[in-house]
């Protein structure tokens, strides 16, 4: 069974702009997929539909058996607990330490402190930040902040990791490291990864499935693809 499925999915914004038109797409468990396209091509819309930040206007989006479009606002958290999301701007809580940031989702789900500690330490170890638990986000470099964001995304062992331009704010060397961290998570934990990106080098180096979005339409879907204009 497919893990993610878009069926004739269209998203038209209130101002009349079409984000995505008639998208049909299937992604299996454990895949690593790049979503590429120009700015305003619709790749962010596609990503936002996955974690129900946007609702499809027509058609449906299913993630792990949940029909995302039919999910009520106050039940969205149930979907998001099954996902990990990595953002371009990290979205860390500035007044919490690294440890507290990574522990935050589990605390808010009501986990016991004794359950939280090993999970947080394991996630921080996975991203190579075990020695920075007491730092605050502003004391870290961009790359380190992104690692904290990844640790927070994987701390609950999600089935799907959604990455929205995770290297957009990072230099090439740090970007490479971040992608390696995410790739390791995909390989070791068999987490499905969907990543929207601009970064040609990364896409070309990884040789993974590439979905090209152009003007809201799925233009190409290539296994072991490259970033070509």
């Amino acid at each position, binding site marked *: 069974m497919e893990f993610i499925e878009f069926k004739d999915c269209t998203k038209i914004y209130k101002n009349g702009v079409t984000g995505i038109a008639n998208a049909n797409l299937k992604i299996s468990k454990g895949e690593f997929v790049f979503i590429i396209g120009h700015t305003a091509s619709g790749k962010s819309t596609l990503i936002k539909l996955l974690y129900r930040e946007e609702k499809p206007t027509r058609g449906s989006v299913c993630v792990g058996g949940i029909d995302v479009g039919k999910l009520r606002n106050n039940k969205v*958290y149930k979907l998001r607990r099954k996902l990990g999301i990595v953002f371009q701007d990290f979205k860390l809580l500035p007044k919490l330490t690294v440890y507290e940031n990574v522990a935050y989702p589990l605390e808010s789900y009501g986990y016991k402190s004794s359950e939280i500690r090993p999970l947080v330490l394991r996630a921080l170890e996975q991203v190579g930040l075990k020695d920075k638990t007491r730092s605050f986000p502003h004391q870290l470099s961009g790359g380190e902040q992104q690692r904290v964001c990844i640790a927070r995304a994987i701390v609950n062992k999600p089935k799907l990791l959604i990455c929205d331009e995770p290297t957009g704010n990072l230099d090439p060397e740090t970007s490479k490291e971040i992608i390696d961290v995410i790739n390791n998570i995909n390989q070791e934990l068999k987490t499905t990864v969907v990543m929207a990106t601009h970064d040609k080098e990364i896409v070309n180096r990884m040789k993974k499935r590439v979905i090209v979005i152009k003007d809201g339409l799925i233009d190409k879907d290539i296994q072991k693809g490259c970033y070509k204009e």
Partner: protein
Amino acid sequence: MRFFRIIGRSIKASLKSIFRNFSLSMASITCTIITLILVSIGILLSYNVNHITKEIENELTIVILLEKNVTTEEIQATEKSLKDIANVDTIKYNSKEEIKNNLAKESETYAKIIESWEEGENPLQDSFVLTVKNVKEINETATTIKNMDHVAVVKYGESMVNELIKIFDMVKNITLVLVAALILVTAFLISNTIKITIFSRRNEIEIMRLVGTSNFVIKLPFLIEGFFIGIMGAIIPVLITIFGYDYAYNHLSTVGLNNLLNVISLVKPTEIVYYVILILFGIGALVGMFGSVRAVKKHLTI
């Protein structure tokens, strides 16, 4: 268990957040302090105005002069009929002899005049002094009495009483409206200040949503924080109410207002202060909680 863990964490988070967002918390607390002081003054004023009007109302009496030469039996019969009137509260009988003696004691001039009367002569009339239960019905009661046998004159200062009743009603209504308006303004001001402080934390709320925190768990720390801020904002107004009102009460008594106008006295502090304290804490806590939850809710729609 999980529920209590979440509540415990929310209390901890809310306390942390009050201190980590200290300047914002102070803005909300200051606003609460100022408005609750106004509410306290409003309540104390309106309560006292009501109290004073009631006291004045209680002082209003009806004086009945009986016909000359009424017999003892007739006086007793009249007293019985007066007792049967529903609105009559207390009845005091003054015989003309008593009145004569009292007058003689009151001043030398009266004493001299009374001395000039012949032995056994007494042109005064026997009288009753009544208080009524409901001042608004004093007109009807007086008319009923006027129509009774052996009653010569009924006096209660008709025009003044009617004017007083009108003024009392107006004052009561005005103070009520004032207090209600003050409470509304307080609610509005406090919840607006909270809204601004929460607006500056909308990123925080967005992140909570994105990592899968349920709306209830997002709202809870803000609810508790609003509660604490409301309570903290109520402390100073409560202290001002306790000490300020006590001072006003004692000060006005020593200045002599109470003696100057026999009828006017403020409500005793013990009778009213506890009640105002409860109201202030109640308004602070409720407005704090609902204000912050309402403000957070705005950022929870997707």
